[in-house]
């Protein structure tokens, strides 16, 4: 291959490669952003519905707790049919609270879900990955 041929080939490949790789990946960016928006809007709608159900469950718990004031190490019985929290979750939360504050006579008044900016497991995962440094 003489000099001129080399220049032609190398520039052809450089420009083709540059353009094609960028075009394909930019196309992917646009598509991912598009379906990301669609999916998150659909999921937000269903998440709103879920949040309303959980607010109901919390309200139910408050009224139930007021009725069982004499119970020590309170295991609040909520009808499982109410959407959101099941018996076991409530029992676990009550037991955890009891273990933290101890000595019985713990009254669970209400259980509300706190919105998390960074889920605890993610934090643990990140710390795990970065600990070697």
């Amino acid at each position: 291959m003489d000099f001129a041929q080399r220049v032609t080939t190398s520039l052809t490949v450089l420009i083709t490669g540059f353009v094609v790789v960028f075009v394909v990946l930019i196309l992917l960016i646009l598509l991912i952003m598009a379906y990301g928006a669609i999916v998150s809007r659909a999921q937000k709608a269903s998440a709103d519905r879920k949040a309303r159900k959980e607010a109901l469950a919390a309200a139910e718990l408050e009224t139930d707790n007021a009725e069982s004031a004499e119970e020590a190490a309170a295991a609040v019985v909520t009808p499982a049919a109410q959407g959101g929290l099941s018996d076991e979750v409530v029992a676990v939360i009550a037991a955890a609270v009891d273990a933290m504050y101890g000595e019985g006579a713990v009254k669970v008044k209400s259980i509300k879900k706190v919105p998390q900016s960074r889920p605890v497991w993610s934090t643990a995962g990140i710390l795990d990955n970065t600990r070697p440094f």
Partner: protein
Amino acid sequence: MEILQGFLDAIVGLYESSGLCYLPWQNYVMILISIFLLFLAIKKQYEPMLLLPIAFGMLLVNLYPSIMAAATDLVPVSDYLASHGGEAANYAVTTLQGVDYYNVPTTGGLFYYLYQGVKLGIYPPLIFLGVGAMTDFGPLIANPKSFILGAAAQIGIFITFIGAIFLGFTAAQAGAIGIIGGADGPTAIFVTSKLAPELLGPIAVAAYSYMALVPIIQPPIMKALTTKKERAIVMTQLRPVSKLEKIIFPVLVVIVVAIFLPDAAPLVGMLMLGNLFRESGVVDRLFKTAQNELMNIITIFLGTTVGATATGTVFLDINTMKIIVLGLIAFCIGTAFGVLFGKLMCVATKGKVNPLIGSAGVSAVPMAARVSQKVGQSENPTNFLLMHAMGPNVAGVIGSAVAAGVLLSVLG
């Protein structure tokens, strides 16, 4: 007396057929080189999963070259006719230096058969299947703009191509050398086996050695191209990615890439299949096999047979030195362009993107992302760039497969 004579004849025969008699000096040099590579793999832990089989394959082929012998014997036609009573046979005829030879099928060497997986482009896509099963594309889906950084780092491939052409390689060989800059072992082997199989040994050794050296090569370039202020930028938390998005991603990517670049389809297709195994959650056994047993089996076969292409005559050549230098240039340019585009994005987003994640666009997963994390953390100890750097890192895997598709379609 006869027994003694027979014994002596046997010993002489053994000696004459032993390697001591017919191995050229280049093979002995290669044996020493392979021992050095074994040292690097075991003691220094340079990508041992690949460098150890490669080094050992190199050792074996230089001790016993027939281990890679092809499954045909070249028998002169005249000899064949003489031993078969004048009956001509149906074999293909090769003419060398005016003499006709029959290609008589025979049994090939052990590595000859295992090497077919490399020659026919089977192993690299299967490795990508395992890689896809091990990769979490979440950070990329959460911030798709990382694809730009993954694309920018592949420019190193094409610039190295220019360097290789001007250093005397053919276009196809230059393409195979350039792909080292993609920092992706299976992609490099896939492209080289199709464009320049004669250079597979040196290119594979160069590619995997540089991947192991990423933590040493990248930081100086990253520090030279960024300011202290830019390195200390803290990026905002990535949004959580839903399961549905993670399932749509592989299907979407394979459709787009395979339609526009069919040559990249085997690599990208298998990468996305592995990822779908992971994200769908319904094929647990396939998912586990893809990333464990299958990966390990293919790594063994790929490593040893790629190493076995590094015979003395191929490796101890000035071209190998050129390939090693060009490979380093490819890496450095890829890192540099990744960081430069990172700076561009930093300016475009008014300081929201830390340019250090740009260097993770070279697809050495997860090494390059960890390097970004480390350099960022040395500037600002509370800065967690790892997840942000994983976006460009995995985008680089797709980017290098796309670049490979371009090279194969233009030069193949």
